[in-house]
């Protein structure tokens, strides 16, 4: 049974609220470590394939939309700012402020997805979607097709994670609006923040690898 001095939000197998929060935070960091290796396979595939097909990656790389990609990068970086401010607000129990920053983060995430979807749509119209419809008229078609395979797979995996993140952020924003968090208990916001920043880190690496190849 929980001792009288611990608030009811602490599960009975933890010694106190701090123990519970540290456990949750450590658990999230370990989960993020698994995500690094999960995405890492694709980065390894990219590294090896680019090593084998350097020119093809250059040719393929020039077909990505550097303007939209750069705007999207700025959007995600900004969403990390808003998320950081949301966690900060939540840590001192500022309900309205945290809801605002969380909502902004989700909106920026949605904006990213809209732009990304637009890019994909146009790339598929251009025949750059790998598979039977792949239609590229330059040299080293296999290499360019591999570039785009990695492009769609990696940005796709990123988008799936971002979508989950948006849903989580929105849910946490709703909970925050319903006054479920306080300065003493805001662990879900902290964990959401960690996940969100991690998604940003993945994109930080994806951006140059797909948008800044062979621009000079």
């Amino acid at each position, binding site marked *: 049974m929980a001792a009288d001095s611990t*608030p009811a939000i602490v599960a009975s197998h933890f010694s106190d609220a*701090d123990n519970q*929060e*540290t456990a949750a*935070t*450590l658990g999230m*960091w*370990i989960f*993020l*470590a*698994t*995500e*690094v*290796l999960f995405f*890492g*396979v694709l*980065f*390894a595939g990219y*590294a*090896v394939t680019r*090593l*084998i097909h350097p020119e093809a990656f250059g040719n393929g790389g020039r077909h990505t939309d*550097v303007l939209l990609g*750069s705007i999207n*990068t*700025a959007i995600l*970086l*900004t969403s*990390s*700012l808003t*998320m*950081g*401010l949301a966690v*900060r*607000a939540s*840590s*001192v*129990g*500022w*309900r*309205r*402020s945290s809801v605002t920053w969380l909502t902004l983060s989700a909106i920026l995430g949605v904006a990213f997805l809209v732009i990304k979807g637009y890019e994909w749509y146009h790339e598929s119209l251009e025949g750059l979607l790998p598979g039977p419809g792949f239609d590229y008229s330059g040299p080293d078609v296999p290499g360019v097709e591999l570039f785009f395979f990695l492009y769609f797979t990696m940005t796709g995996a990123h988008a799936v994670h971002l979508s989950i993140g948006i849903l989580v952020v929105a849910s946490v924003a709703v909970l925050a609006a319903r006054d479920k968090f*306080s*300065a*003493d*208990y805001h662990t879900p916001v902290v964990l959401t*923040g*960690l996940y969100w*920043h*991690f998604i*940003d*880190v993945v994109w*930080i*690496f994806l*951006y*140059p*690898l797909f948008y*800044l190849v062979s*621009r*000079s």
Partner: protein
Amino acid sequence: MSAQRQANAVTATAPDKASGSPPERAPPAWPYWLTWLALLALQALNLGSAYLPLGPFNLVINVGISIVKTLLVMTIFMHLARSSAVMRIAAVAGFFFLAVLLGLSLGDYLTRPT
């Protein structure tokens, strides 16, 4: 007590329930804004340098800038700067073993007879 909680916790004896209530002492916001500006500046640098003909160094700069951005996000936004050693090790562990994967695999490809 995690350092992060000590840094963030405010001496509120009763759970805070009022809506958007009187400002409590919060950690400063300027590190977040400053980091954001630095990240945007680095992105501009990344984008700009891509248009310079630097050969293989373009990739080196790209990855290097990404690493710096990542370190900023992790230390400031993800609070690693004031987290315990365990959190920091957990944060780095994934990258370390990914480096092993990349290093030894690329080591194979780079040393094959051409």
